[in-house]
């Protein structure tokens, strides 16, 4: 099968788990004998010159990710709604490469809504792989949305677009942004590679502080402050036998200053940032992962990675990853408050060493059994093959006319937007 992968960013450069996931799936499909071509933005150029069975064309325009200063609001609108450059490049690739299936990963910033509508109108066999909501930031009541619909019509997607989602959470977010209920054909969790983990037994660690780890973007929406609040509250209650280590990039200076200001140096530390392959082994040194992230978290790969190392996830209830694990069996699910987080931490601290070890073993067992890439890649490939069975010849031909339709309607849309205030 000829597969066209579309992703706003594609490694070696990456921002988060979405791009790395796209790389792994694309590689898995290429290993399965499919011809895979990737269209991506050029924010990160590939200077590794490593040969690969996957051809990557960094020819798309990702409006919000630019090296130049400019009108961010205008870029946001372009990236959310419409970018004719990207439509044209994609249509051309579909025709010239005789594509059988389009596999969309993160298309946020590429003119996401129009990409979906373009593929829908052509009836091109398509899978939208939702590791996040590509329409995040689209406000259906905004002037921009109303202007878009007045030119392009209502955004209704056809059933030629199938969905693989990491969670019901992200599927629901997508449906709400679109304004049309859509359901996933397949749910696939954030996976781990079992072979990257150690096989040693998890033994009780008696009379040692309980070790917590935070590993994500150092940013408020990931809950960095909630962790500090919880730690401060524990200390305030006289609980001393614990530690928290932070890993990740982002607002590091602010974090370090906050740790100092709260007088938590003895319990809380920032440990830098490690490559993913190193981090999965590092998790083995910890009893629990603290992940009080925002509730719209589509999944949270770090949950799988930590659990597979025997590091019990304490996470916000209802995030994507929480749909795959069971509360008090292999994880703890909490409301997104510092009190709930503090109570969960305290619960783990209060367990005896053997019970805590058993909890860790359960998390490890579940993750390795249900969340392994080796288990899910064949399922993903099977779904792609199933979607790709639809005849694509007529759809490829249809890209010619539909491309022109987007060209003209796009010109009207831009014209109408000249007088709009950016909303």
């Amino acid at each position, binding site marked *: 099968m000829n597969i066209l992968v579309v992703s706003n960013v594609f490694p070696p450069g990456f921002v988060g788990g979405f791009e790395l996931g796209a790389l792994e799936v694309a590689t898995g499909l290429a290993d399965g004998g499919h011809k895979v071509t990737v269209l991506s933005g050029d924010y990160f150029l590939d200077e590794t010159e490593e040969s690969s069975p996957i051809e990557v064309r960094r020819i798309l325009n990702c409006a919000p990710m630019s090296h130049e200063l400019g009108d961010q609001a205008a870029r946001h609108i372009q990236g959310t709604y419409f970018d004719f450059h990207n439509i044209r490049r994609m249509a051309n690739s579909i025709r010239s490469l005789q594509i059988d299936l389009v596999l969309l990963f993160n298309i946020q910033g590429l003119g996401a809504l129009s990409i979906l509508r373009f593929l829908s109108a052509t009836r091109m066999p398509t899978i939208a792989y939702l590791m996040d909501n590509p329409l995040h930031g689209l406000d259906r009541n905004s002037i921009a949305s109303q202007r878009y619909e007045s030119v392009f019509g209502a955004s209704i997607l056809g059933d030629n677009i199938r969905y693989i989602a990491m969670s019901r959470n992200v599927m629901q977010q997508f449906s709400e942004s679109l304004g049309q209920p859509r359901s996933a054909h397949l749910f696939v969790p954030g996976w781990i590679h079992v072979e990257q983990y150690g096989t040693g037994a998890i033994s009780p660690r008696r009379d040692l502080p309980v070790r917590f780890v935070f590993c994500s973007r150092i940013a408020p929406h990931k809950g960095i402050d909630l962790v500090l609040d919880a730690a401060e509250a524990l200390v305030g209650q006289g609980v001393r036998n614990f530690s928290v280590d932070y890993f990740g990039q982002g607002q590091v200076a602010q974090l370090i200053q906050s740790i100092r200001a709260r007088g938590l140096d003895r319990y809380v530390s920032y440990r830098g940032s490690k490559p993913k392959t190193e981090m999965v082994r590092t998790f083995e040194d910890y009893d629990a992962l603290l992940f009080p992230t925002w509730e719209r978290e589509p999944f949270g790969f770090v949950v799988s990675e930590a659990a597979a190392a025997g590091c019990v996830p304490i996470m916000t209830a209802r995030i994507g990853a929480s749909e795959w694990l069971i509360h008090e069996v292999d994880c703890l699910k909490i409301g997104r408050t510092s009190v709930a987080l503090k109570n969960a931490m305290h619960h783990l601290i209060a367990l005896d060493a053997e019970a805590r070890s058993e909890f860790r073993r359960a998390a490890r067992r579940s993750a390795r059994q249900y969340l392994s890439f080796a288990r899910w890649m064949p399922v993903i490939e099977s779904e792609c093959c199933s979607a790709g069975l639809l005849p694509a010849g007529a759809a490829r031909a249809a890209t010619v*006319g539909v491309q022109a339709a987007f*060209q003209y309607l796009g010109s009207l849309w831009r014209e109408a937007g000249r007088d709009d205030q950016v909303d």
Partner: protein
Amino acid sequence: MEPHTISVTELDTCLDGADVVFVHQCLSATGLFAAAHAKLRGKWTFGLDHGGGEHPLAHHSPEIGRLFDAFLAQSNFGASSFEDIEGRVAVIKGPVDSTYYSVNPQVRRDSSLILAVGRVLPHKGIDRIVPLIPEDARLVVAGSCYDQDYGQYLRQMPAASRLEIREGLSDAEIRTLMQEASLFIQASTHFDYRQRYYAKPELLGLAALEALCCGTPTLVSSAGSLPELSSIRGCTMFHGDGELGALIRGHFSRQPGRPDADEISRDARAKYGLEAYGHQLLTLMAEMGAWQ
């Protein structure tokens, strides 16, 4: 009508009921808008231009022509409208409503009546005919006057006493005039009486075709698509005003060997009539896969 005045919801509802969409004035802003929505809904889309204007994008970006599965030109000259645009162009001449416009034996010919039909505008070249009206004939122009200066100019011409402009006639009244007329003249021009240039003065010549279907001998100028009509029996093309004058004089001198009304009508119908047009259109659609 501009695209922003159109309710997309209503347009899409109309389009949903169709398998094939014919877009008239296809290069105008509204025509492109309708075609774009037809394409988004997976419809076969055919475009026709009647000289109703062109959106700047039509020539700025030839790819915009891909909105249409084919352009349908009513004449070889009309096909030239699409030269700069990508896309297939099919020439299917016509159509003229040959069931409505036909010979009527009940209507007596008026041997002194010369008829011209069309909007009274400079590029219609009515001023070319007026000085050539024989003294024992009269010219009736059936059509609304959209250019008052031009109307005034015509009325001040030396032979204007033999000119009558009739506005607001119904189709039936115009048909009767065509059946009565001794001669029909379509004198359209690329350069009007003030030497203003018109790229597309005629893309078909529908009024002349209707007159021919009524069996009326017809003179057409060499402007736009009109020369193509001279393949119909009873239709003669002229190049300049001198040639037009000679043909008018020849007509009124009753030269022998001219086809009769039935012959003219039959030939026009065979080449430009609804049935001939429909047959060619369905053949094209079948060849493209839009019709089985």
